[in-house]
């Protein structure tokens, strides 16, 4: 399924099955250690809203579910869709779509036409979240 035509070239295509994207966006498995580093990095925005098993992080949000145990609640494919485009599952969600460039309004020039995260970054984060079993 291709999001937006004009910019589709910049995003890799992916197929949604049920509430999941079963295939890796890059065709490869992500790196969980890099994924953890990304999740706690401010520019990824995750812990603005979420908290989780990051005892070294003083500033975490509480607008969203605790990420602990994500991997026991969701499959990799389900996590992937929640990162790529959570609004497909809940149109009202405040969770941003991390791999989407269409259907947005007044995006700042610095960010225009780019997804929040790259396909590689999504895969790293998916690998990390899937490793959170409790």
């Amino acid at each position, binding site marked *: 399924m291709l999001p937006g035509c004009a910019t589709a070239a910049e995003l890799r295509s992916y197929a949604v099955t049920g509430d999941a994207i079963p295939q890796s966006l890059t065709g490869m498995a992500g790196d969980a250690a890099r994924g953890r580093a990304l999740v706690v990095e*401010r520019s990824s*925005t995750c*812990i*603005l*809203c979420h908290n989780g098993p990051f005892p070294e992080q*003083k*500033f*975490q*949000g*509480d*607008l969203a579910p605790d990420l602990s145990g994500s991997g026991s609640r969701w499959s990799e494919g389900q996590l992937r869709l929640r990162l790529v485009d959570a*609004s497909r599952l809940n149109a009202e969600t*405040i969770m*941003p*779509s991390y791999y989407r460039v269409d259907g*947005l*309004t*007044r*995006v*700042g*020039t*610095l*960010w225009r036409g*780019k997804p*929040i995260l790259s396909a590689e970054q999504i895969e790293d984060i998916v690998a990390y979240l899937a490793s959170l079993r409790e």
Partner: protein
Amino acid sequence: MRFLGAIATALLVVGAVGAAEIPLAERRSGYSFMKPDTKTMQDDDTANPGMLWVLNGETLWNRKTSAADKACADCHGNARASMKGVAARYPAFDKATGRPIDLEQRINSCRTNHQQATPLPFESRELLSLTAFVARQSQGAPIETGADPQLAPFVAKGRELYMQRQGQLNLGCANCHDDNWDKRLAGAAITQGHPTGYPLYRLEWQSLGSLQRRLRACITGIRAQAHDYGAPELVELELYLMSRARGMAMEAPAVRP
């Protein structure tokens, strides 16, 4: 803070309150989310850094300027009397342009039209000082902005902008300030976004700043294109926020983390 007068005023305008607004009894200033030491800094004039701008503003108020050789005081006299309650009614309808203007723009229109001076740049020390000095004369007064029926279409525009999702993060103001104001964003309390204290001293800025500066920061925060200073959209947002805070007490110059 003085709430009794505030409640009475709010009851008068209750007919105009929109559906999604926070009920008056639950409306809270950003002040109430702060730690005790930051509250003390705001409350104590000798500790409140915003008072430096207020004092500078008083000097500018009395200083003759430019071609017309007139000071603000030459037309308006003693600000303690003439400016009392004024900031609590801004943004206000400007007959000349047929649009709302905020307090900074009002001060600049006096400069150009009555003092024949050049307008002061947004966020300049002079403009912030004059605005802080004028706003200070409303400290404790209930916000009355939006009562003028000519403003209605602009309040509606501001509300639309407030509700609209935008930017790469695809969030609207209401997502944080109406729906999640009791929560924390990366450890920072999200408040209800009531503009009761502007211009205010933000510890993070190490300076006084205007409401437009705050709005541009929130807009950039959601990775949307910030409107230029003075843009109609920013003034409409200011207008909506002030009318949404009707009945709350003015605090300028406030302090925020």
